[in-house]
Every structure is written in structure tokens, then in C-alpha cells.
């Protein structure tokens, strides 16, 4: 191991990874470059935009504001781990059905934050949703359909309904 590298073990989407990283490596760069999980995006350099949001040990965090070495021993969930057993997560389905994305660049960050929001409260009001999404910026949607997507996801979660199979078309 090079002298300025540190060994870490991180579980990402249920799979353990042993890696060596420079101390200055950001968690987002570790995920994207070392693990090839490019679904988490980088949209700024000041921790404002939230495109890099992932869930670490049950808490949504901006992975550009966390060092990879800080994630040693942690459980990380990224957008790639949302779909389970061949079915979409309710949040993914909500964003799809309500046109909660346009270019899709901010979307993984929004979805991970939404997972956190709905785990805390599966029936938030519009105002609660908008406040909880303050740390995620979108330039395409004006946020209106994102709010609808979060509500739709919440409704699906509350109902316990099965979500769509990954690979489903648009039905037209």
C-alpha cells in the first residue's frame, strides 16, 4: 500500500468492498471512480446541489461532503441499490409516473433524499416535502412534478402495493 493511502471496507448496496484510497478522496469519487457506480452525480463543489446524495448508515448525506475514509465500516445505499428483486423502489416508480425528472442528472440525489423523507414520514405535506428537499437543486422541473412524485411514492409505500417490474415498458 502506498504511504499516503488508507485501507477501508465499505458495504455498498449490500456488497462489501475492500479498497485503498487517498485520505482526500471524497466518498462520491470513491463510489463513481473506484467502484464504477456512476449513478451518483456531482453537480457542484460547495455542497449545495445534492446531486451526490446517498444514504450512509440510514442517513441521507451529500457524498461530496464526506471523505471515503469516513465511510470505513459503514453501510451505503446508492441509486443502483434501490430496485430490489427485479422491482422498482416505490420512489423510482413515483418519479417515473409523475414525470419527476427531465434530464435526470439531479434525480438519483433527489430519489435518495426522498427515500429518507418517506422513511421518516410516508405521508408528508407539500410544504414538508419542499422543505425537506431544500438541499437538492433541480434546474429542469421547477420542482412541481418532483413533489407529485414524492407523494405518489408515499402513497405506494403506505398501500404496500407491489411496484412495477424493472424492464416494464411505458404501456403504450
Amino acid at each position, binding site marked *: 500500500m502506498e504511504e499516503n493511502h488508507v485501507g477501508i471496507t465499505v458495504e455498498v448496496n449490500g456488497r462489501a468492498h475492500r479498497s485503498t484510497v487517498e485520505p482526500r478522496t471524497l466518498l462520491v469519487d470513491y463510489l463513481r471512480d473506484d467502484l464504477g457506480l456512476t449513478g451518483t452525480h456531482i453537480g457542484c463543489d460547495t455542497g449545495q446541489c445534492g446531486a451526490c446524495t446517498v444514504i450512509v448508515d440510514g442517513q441521507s448525506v451529500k457524498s461530496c461532503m464526506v471523505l471515503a475514509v469516513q465511510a470505513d465500516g459503514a453501510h451505503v445505499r446508492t441509486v443502483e441499490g434501490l430496485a430490489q428483486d427485479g422491482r422498482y423502489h416505490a420512489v423510482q416508480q413515483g418519479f417515473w409516473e409523475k414525470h419527476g425528472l427531465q434530464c435526470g442528472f439531479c434525480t438519483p440525489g433527489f430519489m435518495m433524499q426522498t427515500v429518507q423523507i418517506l422513511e421518516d414520514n410516508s405521508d408528508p405535506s407539500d410544504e414538508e416535502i419542499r422543505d425537506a*428537499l431544500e438541499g437538492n437543486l433541480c434546474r429542469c422541473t421547477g420542482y412541481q412534478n418532483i413533489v407529485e412524485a414524492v407523494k405518489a411514492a408515499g402513497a405506494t409505500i403506505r398501500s404496500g402495493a407491489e411496484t412495477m417490474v424493472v424492464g416494464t415498458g411505458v404501456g403504450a
Partner: protein
Amino acid sequence: MAVASPTRAFGASIRRREDPRLITGRGKFTDDIHLANAATAMFVRSPHGHARIVSIDTSAAAAHPGVLGVYTYQDVKGFISGMPCAWPTTNTGDTLKLATYPPLADGKVRFFGEAVALVVAVDPNTAADAVDLVQVEYDPLPAVVNNEAAVAPGAPLIHDSAPGNQAFRWSLVGGDTNGALAHADVRISQTLVNQRLIATPLETRCAVADYNPASGEVTVWVTSQNPHIHRLLIALSTGIPEHKIRVIAGDVGGGFGAKLPYYAGEALCIFASKELGVPVRWSESRSENYVATAHGRDHIQHIEVGATKEGKITALKVTAYASLGAYPSTVAPGVPTWLFGCIIQGPYDIPNNEVHVIGVYTNTTPTDAYRGAGRPEATYILERVIDLVAAKVGRDPVDVRRLNFVKKDQFPFKVANGTLTYDSGDYELALDQALHTVDYTHLRAWQEEQRAAGKLVGIGFSSYVEVCGLGPSSAANAMGFAGGLYDSATIRVHPTGKVTVFTGVHSHGQGHETSFAQIVARDLGVKVDDVDVIHGDTDKVQHGMGTYGSRSAPVGGGALRLAGMKIRAKAQKIAAHLLEVAEEDIEWVDDAFRVKGSPDKSKTIPDCAFAAYMAGNLPAGVTPILEEQHWYDPENFVYPFGTHICVVEVDRETGETHIKRYVAVDDCGEIINPMLRDGQVHGGIAQGIAQALWEEAVYDENGQLLSGSLMDYAIPKASVMPHLELGHTVTPSPHNPLGVKGIGEAGTIASTPAVVNAVMDALSPLGIHHIDMPLRPAKVWAAIDAASH
């Protein structure tokens, strides 16, 4: 939503075909492209707004372990000496001075953030370390950032080739404005500022270049809205033969015009890859994006208006100082000229109008197209003018709009300066629908009650028409645009009846993979799920002109419709042959060719495609395989229109504006997918509201960009955006193959003045009649405070 049949797909709010990869993190954005052995490029950028470069010492950086090369202008100028301008705007007499735009600074830096040196290293951390080791000695010069100051005597000279920092003088004249002003009952003069904005797509710009020295071919992945334009400009500027260049714009995270231009960073990745024999990748940081990617707007406008005492505007004269920034970007000169001046009278019948534009260089980031590109600057003038006239003559601004509107029986309507003929419109219909939605009479009554209680509440309108669906190539050429503005579609029906569409426009959020599939579904009777739409790769897709100027649906979709009709025409011959009837005995009904009178005797497009693949039993004169292609050059632009109404309350204590209600009624002709259309309007309105209230690119007097990151530049968050109520009217474009007008920019064009007018209406009881954007709380509070003394 499911649709009953493919014929019904057009007009349905179907969820998007592009979403599955995007919601599973499997999008392929340019920074996601990882090639083996790829090096990382980074730039040394100027910390000065204007300075002479005394020396550049790259030796320490070049010697740093892991650094593959460090380059300055002298090293790259043999490969690329200047960034091309593809819109040397006409109608400027001999005043046009397009300054040379070097890819790396040549002896002088002219804006904060201008690239001075290129570092290429084995990985990003090494490149960042090496950038810090490049030593540049500067001799700072005085800078000028104000558009009028830049052309005033004594201003620091930015380019020796542009005396007085003037880039051009441009005018359009209609009627006799001076005469009409002289005779007007009412005259108003007003100065307006349309402030500089920063596009801020969530994805910054990136490029990956992979040059193959053996074949002379280069593949360039780049965040482009128009890959074929990039390919052509790369060829023209570097000498690499056009057919050896492949440009791939895969998933692109928003553009808004800022990813239309061809930039130095992209060209230099190609240079470095050629030089070093490895792929070279570059991704902007956000703060780099804020200085290196084109800014938008930036006008200072002096307006003179003449009107009757009833409020009918008889004369409008506009003199605008428009900043190009420090250098002319790819289409920059056309934005504050043709895209602004042609439509200077908007939806109003103003028989005498003149617009004069002075293009200026300032020590700021180069400007280029930004959502609306010229039309927001024009609409803001008109909508503020209407309200100022209404206030002066003591009439309701709604009535003044009605009085001045082009009436629905006046279409097609040629504007006074002769440049445009509006195809169709019913401006009063949209206005009436918006008024009905807000229950206008009761709204004004509510305002009176609120005012009596001491509240500052306002109602603001914006009625607009905009010119988009760029456009007729003859007009483009006449305006100096270095290209046509047609677009293209290839429809490939495979033997099994699945369809692949290749479109020359580009999707970076607009959803064309879905909306275009809906067009094909209706025209060919195939399922939306069976249609793949390919765009963005110049190796796969025939020549197209990309996406900007709300052109994809009208022009890209128009080409697709016409290609589809070619498919239908060929398939009809095959179907008739297979059904053993004459062509005139079959008709296209319910997704198939059916024998008239015996509809069960039918052939679908997939049936015809298979027969065309087999090819042994085709009618005389019909060639194998079912594939057609079309380039569509529109005969006119298209003209979406509408009315937006905004209701605000201004907090007296803080100057903060709260939007209490926002209603938009827009007409984009036929609608392909209402959900996608609404999404475009939501996003457009967010950007327009943001210009009115929050956003501004701020430079200090030394040319330092103070609003250099998301900490200081206020793009809206979910918590500050109001809920938007959208409505629509449908006035099809009579000349467009689909009857559509564009909708991508209309929300932005309309919304800015709706909000400003609302705030001014709220403040009108205090005698305040104008405040420049953005209407930040401190500014509004100061105006309220001054008015009370």
C-alpha cells in the same frame, strides 16, 4: 397511462421511455465515460478580469510526477488558433468586429476565469496539484464590466481590433417612429436592465477525446446540444477531416442554451489526446462552469414609447447595449440582434417601431444563448411598457393589452419591421382564459380589501408571443447564421416491425425518446414501446442541427412526420399488392391499411416491413426494406403565445416577495404529450421567476465574478418555488406538419415580466413605478423606505 391503440398515443400523457435508465443510475453522462489509460485535463485560469500576461512558468508543473503535459497558447495554436463564431450577424453595415477568441490566453487575459494553460495528468488529483504549480505573472489592467461604460470614451480597450469596445451596431426599423413619437399624446422614457444570468444546468460541461493516430479518427464525447454542429466546427477549426470525427452527446444533464456553443476546453481535449496518444477527459467543477460556460442576457435598454390617451401604443423605440462578454461565443452575435429585434413588437400591433442594438465587449465571461435567447429581453420591454402606459393613462393593464393586441382576424400578421409573419394566434383567447382562471374581478376586489388592510399585494400580467422553431434556412442564412436550420429524421422499420428513429435534434431533458415515439406510433400504427429514438451520435445519425430555440417538436418532429408519410406511401403500395387490390381501394384506418368496405382485410406496417425484407413479392418499382429519410426546411418560424398572471404580496418589513398565485395559459398548437409539455413550462417558469426575483451574475469593478458559486448565485430551491397552475389553448400552426409550435422557452419568456409587473403593482400605492431586476428584498425594501420619506 395506457393508451387504447397506437393511433391514440399522440396527445397522451405517457410516461417516458428514457426514464428507466435514468432512475436506475444507468444514464451515460459524459463524466461517466471511462476509457482505459485516460488522462485528466485541467485548466489554469485567470484570477484577473483584465491583465497582461508577463510570463508563464510551466516547468515545475511539467516536472511533477504523473504530469503528461503542460501547454500554453504557443503550444496549441498550430492545432487551433481561435474559437469560431458561427453567427457573424448581418445588418451591421461594416461595424461588425469579431475579435479573435484564442483557446488559451494569448498575451492577455480578458475575463476572470479565462483559461491560460492546460495541464494533463494521469488522474484528477495529480492534475489539480499540477495546476497549482503553474506560475503565471500578471500585470493587471483596469477592467470594465458595465455595457455603457465599456463604449464610453476613456474605457479600457479590451481588443485592439474593436475600437471603443464596440462589437457591432445593428438596427431594424418599421414605420416612422420619430414622427409617431412627436405626435403622441403620451410619451414615456424608461431605462431597463435585463441582468446577466448563469445557466446552471445541474451537469457541468465535460468532454472526453480519444484520438487514434493510426486512423486519424477522433471520438469526442461532449455535453453538446447539437453534436453535428460540434463536429463541423471541430473540423473547421482544427483541420481534422469532418468524416473522421465522431461526436457523441449521450445523456446530457440540461443545456438551456449553454451547451450549444463549441468551447475551447472541448477542443483542447482533442489537442491533448492527439499530442499524447491517450484519451483525455475533462469535467468542469461548478465554480469553473460559472466562469467558463457562456452566460446569458445582459442588456441595458433605453425605451421611448408614444401612445394615445387611451393607451394605444403608436411608437416604440429601443436602444439596447448588449454584452458579448470578453469574446464572441459561437452564436452570440445573433442573440441580442435577430432573436431580439425581429419580435420587438411582440403580440401588439405597433405600426412604428425601431430597435437599435450596440454590441459591446466587456471584461466578463462570454455570453451566448440562454433559454429564450433574445425573446425574454424583448418581452420584458413590452410587458413593462404596457404597464407603464396603463399607469400613465389611468387604465387597467388588461384593457391596454387588449387594445394593443394583434386581433385574431389579422393573421398571418407581418410585423412592422418586415422580418416576421406570425402564422396564427388568438391572443385574447389566452388572456380571457387566464382572467377566468383567476376570477379577475374578484381578484381586484380582494386586492382592494388587502390594500385597505395595509398589505402590499399586486397582480401582474405578461402577454407574449415568441418566435421559435428555428427555422427557415433562407432566413437563417440572411441573418448571417453559418448554417441552415432544417432538421432530419430517418425511420428504420426492421423486418420484425420494430422501429428505430434517428433524429437530428437532441434531448437533454425534453423527452424526445418518448414524444417522437408518440409521433411514429400515431403515423405508423406501432406501439410506443416498439419505437427506439436515437440521437446524439454523429456516426449513427444523419446530419441535424440539434436542439435550441424550441425547434425540436416543430422542426425535428416535422421531419419525423414527413419521413413517416414517406414510409406510409411506400408501405401502402406494398399493402395494396399483398391484399391484391388497387391502392385507391385501401385506406389507413385504426393502425393498418384496410380494404375499403372490408376492414378485416388489412395489412399493418410490420406486415409490410417483413414483405419489404423478403423482397421477392414486391410491386413493380418498389425497392426492398422499409426505411425512409427526410430533411425538413420549415417555411416559417412558429409563434407560441399566451398570458401569465402572477399574484404577489410584498412584505413591507423585509422587502421579500411571496408569490401567492401563478397562472399560465400557453398556446403551443397541437400537444404531443401534455405531461411533458407541462414539465417544460414548469421548468421554464422557474427560470423566469428566478430572473425576476433572485438570480444575477455580479461582477465587481475589477471584473471579479462575485457570484461565483451556488453559495452566491441563487437558483431556486423547492422551498421557494410556488405551485404553478397551467392551462392552454390550441391554435395550430398552419404551416407545420404536426401543427405544433415549440414550448421549451415560452415559460421563461412569459414569466419574468409577470412577476415584475406584480411587484410593481403591489408597490404602486407608494408611488414606486420601476425597480430593476432581480427584485431582491434589500432592493425592494430600500425603494419602500425611500418612498416613505
